């Protein structure tokens, strides 16, 4: 009798063990699939064109847009990302992300007062992107740029936040 019971207990253990094994094997593809969204080796960012240099006159800051390098065919308009291009002296540029560094709302440029203003919580930045006032913890996020065959190119590809601005250089605070 006792022999039978211990035999059944062992078989139950075998059943549990087999199922645990299958669960672990199943978990590998599930976890891999779920975490596939996490970026590895900067595969999200790439160089994109903002258009010919002529679109950005010297001394002005203008809105530009680009299509995100990684996109799905059914992304629609959400793959079109805006940014602010400041042409300082025809050779030097600054390209700012649209997102406020506080909580990501779209900042707007006011040429009259030479300020960027955020409509959400009133963050303000100067023309060079430095934090001017309000809750933002730092200056605007800035894209790397280069000029190639008369086109203004930037390295872009992900929504900039305080954590995901790998391709984006910080700029100093204006005291």
């Amino acid at each position: 009798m006792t022999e039978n019971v211990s035999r059944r207990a062992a078989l139950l253990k075998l059943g549990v063990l087999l199922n645990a094994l299958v669960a672990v094997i199943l978990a590998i593809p599930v976890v891999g699939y779920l975490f596939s969204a996490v970026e590895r080796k900067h595969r999200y960012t790439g160089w994109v064109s903002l258009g010919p240099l002529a679109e950005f006159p010297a001394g002005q800051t203008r809105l530009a847009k680009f299509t995100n390098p990684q996109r799905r065919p059914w992304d629609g308009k959400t793959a079109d990302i805006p940014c602010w291009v400041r042409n300082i002296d025809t050779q030097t540029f600054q390209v700012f992300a649209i997102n406020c560094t506080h909580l990501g709302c779209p900042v707007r440029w006011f040429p009259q007062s030479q300020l960027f203003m955020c409509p959400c919580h009133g963050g303000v930045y100067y023309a060079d992107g430095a934090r001017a006032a309000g809750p933002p913890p730092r200056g605007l996020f800035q894209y790397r740029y280069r000029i190639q065959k008369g086109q203004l190119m930037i390295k872009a590809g992900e929504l900039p936040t305080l954590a995901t601005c790998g391709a984006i250089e910080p700029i100093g605070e204006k005291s």
Partner: protein
Amino acid sequence: MKRLQKIFEWLDQRLKIGAAVREAMYHRVPRSSGSWFYVFGSSAFLLLLLQVVTGILLALVYVPSASQAWNSLQVLNHDITLGWYLRAVHGWGSNFMVALVLIHMMQVFLFGAYKYPREFNWVTGVFLLLFTLGMAFTGQVLRFDQDAYWGLGIGASITGRVPLIGAPLVHLLLGGPIIASDTLSRFFDLHVFIIPALLLGLVGIHLLMVLKLGINEWPMPGRLVRRETYLKEYEDLVQRDGVPFVPDAIWKDMVFGAMILGSVLVCAAVFGPFGPRGVPDPTIIQAAPRPDFFFLWIFALLALLPPYMETPLILIGPIVVIALLLLVPFLSGEGEKSWRRRPVSVLTVLVVAVTLGALTRFGQEAPWSPVMNGWSGLPVPAQYLKGRSALQRQGAIVFQEKQCRNCHSLGGEGGKRGPALDSVATRLTPDELIRQVLQGGGNMPAYGHNLSPAEVTALVSFLDTLHPPGVRPARDFAEKGLPLLDTGHPAKH
């Protein structure tokens, strides 16, 4: 009738659920619990069922893709027969459900219903509240309009503040590098599969516990809960002064539930569906995103917190609040149930309610948001221009053109981010005005680089005229020979 009974008996011999249903229906509840205060939970459940039904119907048409979601909502609103009404019922059902879950929770807290042996009714209830809020938030995302798009940006920005693992978390939240199709799909997954499954499962457990442990009796001041004696006392009460749940207690649940559902239907018919507002096109940057009603208080909190507290508070705050809520029944699992003898509990509810109410009110007003077209859209009040010199009027133009109005109001119109400037001259001397304009400070940017000296002179001479008639503008003590009343001033006329 006889035949019907025969059919039921035939079925029950095979299904074997009749006994359980009868037990649930006729279980005895304390007579005092058949009260109008004990109807909120059942109504919240009724609303959950309404949400499931209307949600399934909306999913017949809704397309969870970034390029088509907004269009499919337009089709629902305008092209499908009564599609607008189903959207409205789902939207208002959501608002009513959040409200009722909160009211239910408040009632349970004030009536001490979370105490022994019902600790886990409370714990599951806390999770039900979180899941309900989760449904409200993810539902707002599925409305995939401008508000939803930038709302996701806010969510990502908060997530990006998590130390060390911020970046992978942002990618997990968005399902990729940007707010796009994969983002919407995962919120669809949460809203339609994951959270509803958790909600329905947990509601089942929540209800089973109410059934097995019995509904809380009406709390009497001085009747204390003790672990050793409570179960027997409750059993005695139910035997001595109990009534069957059906029909003695349930009719109130049914009447109230019908009233609530009716209110949802009326609100939906009168006020219509929520949005969708602007198209989710990130290149249309003329957006001022606002969260739905039940999240306005968070919006307000994020604006009003001092920056140095922001990150720790938004990351740690929710964990602390949820932990405190979960701990409530374990911190005071015994003792007094009646709110008449629990002043701290009543005060807690009042403080929380007033805080959330005030923050919500602030969130509706959003005084911290600049009026982005204040400078171009609002005229300077005529009386502030009358009798002014050419220089002062020039200053009024500078004031308008340099977006000062986006944050400062004149005559009650304009931004409220900075102080109203109608009487600024009584607070600041001309020198202080110049300093404030040039260097900024507080929440004001420095205009030193953005104004020419001539513009500063004009602006300050205009600002110095802004004081009520007969009130002297602020002056330095050093200035000699100042008249008590500034009789020659134009603002007097």
